[in-house]
């Protein structure tokens, strides 16, 4: 009943909550990342997820949190995010002041996985706050309260960052990076990508998914030729979901994989050529699955 009401109203739940029962969010392993994460988790080591946009970092973490049965607190970092936003601050309540924990503090106290997404976007003082949490001390100093929170034994810190688009000026300091166990992600290979898209947008014919993934991977080659971010697996999933919702394949690809990526007219034209090759009026629906890179 509560779930139904939540769905109607847009439910609100506590940020620190155990994973919902049921199957874990779908994640298709590409390598040994699950083993690495589990090992790090057993030893409570902080983890850094590196990889391009939309390759599955966040999904991986959701999957792992579910698998490990831990609450997950996600903080999307932005350039105005200060240390106080993470740690907490005093608020006025009537005539008194009350301390309000920030998401990081709550995760530390309650033994959650705290996920700082795109940490480089945050102001530099935030990275200083997390230092004592990432080594053997595992504690969070609350300067304003003159207190220290010892981390719950299940607390784990995870950060993500995308080594591509930020400038060197914004990069993490080597001293910060060294404190983490790093797992590098990249876009999955073609077969895995097909499986992912098929899973996320169930019910699409295999031929359509083959073409969609082929088109997306083809478009990915235009990165570094004006395309700042390559076509992501997530974009392909979105396109597939649009198709599932009844949109024509070519239109779905345009909406999810062309226009969000670039405003450059020539790039748009090139991407549309690729989409049309796979989904345009000329595309042969029964075409054999295109090989990734046929030998020259």
């Amino acid at each position: 009943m509560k779930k139904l009401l939540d769905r109607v109203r847009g439910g609100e739940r506590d940020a620190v909550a155990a994973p919902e029962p049921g199957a874990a969010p779908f994640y298709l392993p590409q390598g040994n990342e699950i083993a690495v994460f589990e090992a790090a988790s057993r030893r409570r080591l902080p983890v850094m997820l590196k990889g391009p946009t939309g390759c599955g970092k966040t999904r991986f973490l959701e999957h792992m949190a579910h698998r490990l049965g831990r609450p997950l607190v996600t903080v999307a970092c932005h350039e105005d995010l200060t240390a106080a936003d993470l740690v907490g601050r005093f608020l006025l309540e009537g005539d008194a002041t009350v301390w309000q924990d920030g998401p990081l503090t709550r995760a530390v106290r309650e033994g959650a996985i705290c996920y700082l997404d795109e940490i480089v976007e945050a102001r530099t003082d935030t990275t200083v706050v997390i230092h004592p949490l990432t080594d053997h001390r595992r504690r969070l100093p609350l300067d304003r309260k003159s207190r220290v929170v010892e981390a719950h034994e299940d607390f784990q810190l995870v950060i993500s960052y995308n080594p591509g688009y930020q400038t060197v000026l914004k990069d993490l300091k080597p001293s910060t990076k060294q404190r983490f166990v790093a797992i590098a992600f990249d876009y999955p290979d073609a077969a895995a990508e097909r499986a992912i898209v098929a899973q996320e947008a169930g019910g699409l014919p295999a031929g359509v998914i083959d073409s969609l993934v082929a088109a997306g991977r083809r478009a990915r080659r235009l990165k570094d030729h004006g395309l700042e971010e390559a076509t992501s697996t997530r974009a392909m999933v979105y396109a597939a979901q649009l198709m599932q919702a009844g949109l024509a394949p070519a239109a779905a690809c345009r909406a999810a994989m062309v226009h969000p990526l670039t405003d450059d007219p020539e790039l748009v034209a090139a991407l549309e050529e690729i989409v049309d090759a796979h989904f345009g009026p000329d595309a042969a629906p029964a075409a054999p699955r295109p090989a990734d890179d046929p030998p020259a």
Partner: protein
Amino acid sequence: MTDRAQPDTPEEEILAQLEAVSYVAHRDACAALPAVRAVEAAGAARWLEAGRELFLRDRDAGRAFWRGTPALAGAFAGLDPWLEQALSLGRVRGAWRAVEGFMAQAGAVRARWGGAGERRWFDLGRRWTVRDAGAGGRYFETPFEALAGAGAGVEALEALLAPAESLGEGGTALGAYLDAALRLRGTVDAGTFARWAARGADVLRAARTRGERYFRLEGEGLDSLFELMPGFSVRRRGRLLRLLLEAWFGAALPEAARAWRESDWRPGGGAAAVETDGRRLWLPAVFPDREAAVLGVLHAAGHLVYGTYEPHALAAEAGSGGPGEGPAEAWTRRCASVTGEADGRFRAVFDLCEDLRVDLRLARRIPGYAKRLQRLARAAPRPSGYAGRLRDALCAGLGALDADHPADALGPRLAPLAAPEATVATAFACARAWFRETGGPEGAETDADGAGPAPAAAFHLPGRGPNAPRPAGAVAAAHAAAAGAGDEGAGEAHTRRPAAVPAGARAGRNPRVESRGAMGGSGARGAGVGSVARVPPSPAPRAPRRGGRAYPEWDYRAQAYREGWARVHDCELREHDAAGAARMWEATAHLRRRLRRALQRQRPVRRAPLRRRPDGEDLDLDAAVDYVVARRAGLAPRPDVYVRRAARGRDTAVLLLADLSTSIMATTPDGGGRVVDRLRAALLVFADALEEVGDPCAVRGFASKYHDGVEYYRIKAFDEPLDADRRARIAGLTGRLASRMGAAIRRAVDELRAAPAQRRLLLILSDGRPADYDDGGDLRYLHEDTRLAMKEARDAGIHAFCVTLDPRAGTYLPAIFGVGHYLVLEDVDRLPQRLPEIYLRLRRGGAA
């Protein structure tokens, strides 16, 4: 001396007079006289009188008159009106060619278009002759049917020449116009041609020599035509093709092929098609449409990727040539090995088989390729004769591209092409067997017109051409043209290859006439803006230059920096031109005033909120809460609880880095001055404006000769005022040497790092691609280095922007500077005005 009888009739008197002047004239006149008497006995005297006048004015005109008379008298059955017409032409000074052409053609014109048509033909020509005798000559000696177009009437002729009416007393431009009109008819639609001619008329009014060059389709004229022509412009949209090659082929396509050049294809020079030398691609400036462009380029790249031009692929089939045999010669020899001579038919059959093989492979790689190609083939008009049969065979073959079993669909003869292991040798063998058996595709159609290589090659689809590699000479010429139209070498490249004029238009020309060269100068140089000519690595040993600052240079081949490879020497400019500076100061006064006003008015006012201020317009809520909390807690916090929205101070430093290589000494494309003059004015105006506005501004120039000789010129430093001395330096700027841009950028970044500002802008003024004497012709080397230098600049927090005068910059600057980080100024004259706009744009986007 013998006694002569006194002439008793006017005719005899004239004949006697002629005899005294010229034996030949007398003889010719006597020979033609009976024909005149036969049609109009009473007119003989009138005729002789006219002939004498013509002859005395110009012997050539007279001779043409005598000799042409019998035919005209017969054709017109009398002396009118042609006698008067010839005479009126002959009275124009220097119009002997017009008379000659008139006499030769008037009869045929009358027979074809009747008396009224002949009169209109003559009136048009006479008007031209009066304006310019040479152009009139060109008009009358060009076969009238060629002028009007096959099967068309005099109306078509009038339409052809109508745009020329606005040319005014254009002199030789009329002749050039006629040439251009004939050449472009059939390839360029009437509307485009009229617009092009109208633009040319404007140019001609502005400057006569420029206008003549325009109509000769040199430089500006050609650029303007390419711009106006409908279709797919490679100059504007070439990047799309590049992106598609990248997407579909990626690393499989050699790097050289992705950096194509513009071919020397001109409208009227056959179908626009991709050419290759087996390694690189040459694209025409304009394709008929986007589909032809995309499919043509993909197909040509397919040939490169699938080994059509492998040097040894055909050795087993046709033997290998001697040492030093180029790809083009090898191709010819192989084709000749089948037929015993370079037969265009076998070539075409071979092309057909090889094209099909490549298309089969491409259809497997590129989804939708087969359908698009089939549609293109259906839409293309079918040629006649042998080429038509080839086209039918090609279309049938293309139908197999998306068949489930291509080998079955192709039929037994071509089935081997569909095998995955098929190579160019397979195609060669297929073609040879086919050719030897039946002479290629058979059909009921006669192939009377299919004998030569050109008609057979007409079977190719739009955008595609024969597979024979370009001969080395053509490659070199195009190479020179691509290296930059501004230098003399490129100017020659334009004029070296004579323009292709339709055969019909040339047929009527008299070679003797050509040699008299009445059509004015032909040695005009193409003008334009480009970079230095490519110079091969110097074989002579050279003492390395020491000193200066060492900078690393990126070597893309090694994917590594060459540490300390480039040496940048800070130099003073010796040339000062105080008088020139004063003149420029005066000449730019109006512009500078306008610019200063505009800069002040458009001064960017970014109202970034400053938080936690002791005073301000708004409360800073977070700070206020913190403040209250701290007070409650018994502390004594500073009451910094306001947000201030003050405009940030102008704290931007600009370094203008000007490319001072030789190419800036070129004349501007419109021929109205030199690039360097505009550059000087632009630097002066810009520095003055910034001074007025108060932003720190430095001006630097650079030029280079070899990697250890990059010179970095002090023109104005950040802390120096723009005084008379600095202005004189700017006015004295000249072009020298080449442009090793990467090293200069690194030096400028060093200087900017120390600049007294938070935002730092590096503005590069260039007129061509980075190049140097020792880059060995490898364009990519310095491109890649410059790209890396830009990246370093960005990493150092410096926003860099390039303003270029090179119209071809769109082909390489996006890769170097990134989209949105460069600007191509198509009009050099606007450089001084445009710089402030760019400045404002940079200020907005500059890294804070």
